[in-house]
């Protein structure tokens, strides 16, 4: 007999908030970040990329994005953009416009620089140990998100 997943959407969503260093792309975030993500999608077209690169601010002013959102986009502050409902698959169009690899852009969201991040990945990636639950981490006096530490260390 298959257990039916919860149909209590509030309980379902609440569990996601307990995962350290992670913003699950929920409906709330999708609504909040709609214009940020659609702006990023517009960069799929070469002529839009050119216009954006020529005058980023002017291009952003064509979109219904808050001042805060525009500032985060101009600063390439990806964690702030995630908080505002940005999603990495859409934001990746901005990575490629900047000529950044996916891994390099992703590393900018962590507490490591790109060479350190690459070294962590080659050593087997970030360990799930102490990285599963904010509640559990706090209950055991650990930081909410485990600091970076490659497995080989």
């Amino acid at each position, binding site marked *: 007999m*298959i*257990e039916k*997943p919860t149909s209590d*959407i509030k309980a*379902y*969503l609440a*569990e*996601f908030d307990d*995962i*350290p*260093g*992670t*913003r*699950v*792309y*929920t*409906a709330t975030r*999708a609504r909040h970040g*709609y214009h940020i*993500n*659609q702006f*990023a*999608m517009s*960069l*799929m077209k070469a002529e839009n990329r050119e216009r954006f690169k020529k005058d980023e601010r002017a291009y952003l002013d064509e979109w219904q994005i808050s001042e805060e959102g525009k500032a985060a986009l101009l600063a390439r502050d*990806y*964690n702030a953009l*995630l908080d505002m409902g940005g*999603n*990495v*698959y*859409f934001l*990746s*169009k901005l*990575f*490629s*416009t900047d000529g950044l*690899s*996916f*891994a390099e852009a*992703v*590393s900018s*969201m*962590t*507490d490591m620089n790109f060479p350190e*991040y690459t070294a*962590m*990945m*080659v050593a*087997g*990636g*970030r*360990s*799930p140990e102490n*990285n*599963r*639950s904010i509640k559990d981490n706090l209950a055991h006096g650990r930081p909410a*998100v485990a600091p970076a530490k490659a497995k080989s260390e």
Partner: protein
Amino acid sequence: MARITAGVGSSHVPLLGVAADFGKSTDDYFKPIFDGYEWTKKWEEQEKPDVVILVYNDHASAFDMKIVPTFAIGTGEHYKPADEGWGPRKVPDVYGHPDMAWHVAQSLILDDFDMTIINEMDVDHGLTVPLTMMFGAPEQWPCKIIPLAVNVVTYPVPSGNRCWALGEAIRRAVESYPEDLNVQIWGTGGMSHQLQGARAGLINAEWDNKFLDGLIGETDELRQIQHVEYIRETGSEGIEMVMWLIMRGALGKKTKLLHRHYHVPCSNTAIGHIVLEPAD
């Protein structure tokens, strides 16, 4: 009668496409990954499938936030590789099998799976990287491909149990198609990876390998894994593994392992690959 003769699971990391397209697949970094697909390339040459039903997710290429279909099936004749921001991959165009795709789409809808129908779209690395890994770099892809796109980005995504059940329904649909065709089903994406936030780079090799174990034999325990477990244990993008369950569900009660491969890392991701055949 058409038959599903095998299932293939594989990661679809875009960097693998770059490595293959720019002749880097024998570099130290990539060789251990590509070596694990050599067995499958030879096996595919012998198997010569007529059709591959390729389960994947679109990465903001064909779909944006305007429309988010949960399950969508490609019934078109022809799909071009998508421009994902650095020009389309120089790989062959993808040819569909509209007759079988429409048959499967109609059968699934009558079987309570309310599919979205896609006649025109471009296909991104989620679909073309697995083709490269399994078939190499031919002039033309050696078979017809029916794309089956799953939303694994905007929550709630479909449950693992629902994905497995869709696989079961795909098998019934394929087996009611009159022409004698050799059909494979591929489930792609995963394994562990998180592409966002402070926890980016998470890899859980132990969990991934248990997942691979669970695809083999008679067990159907993987159906019960909830979304929160995928995210907690394997990273936010590890959720893509639900797509492997569509493949597994289409193989019937029992499977036999033909080939298995696992490697860390490829960019931000753990590479997993498995070849199974139905063993009922």
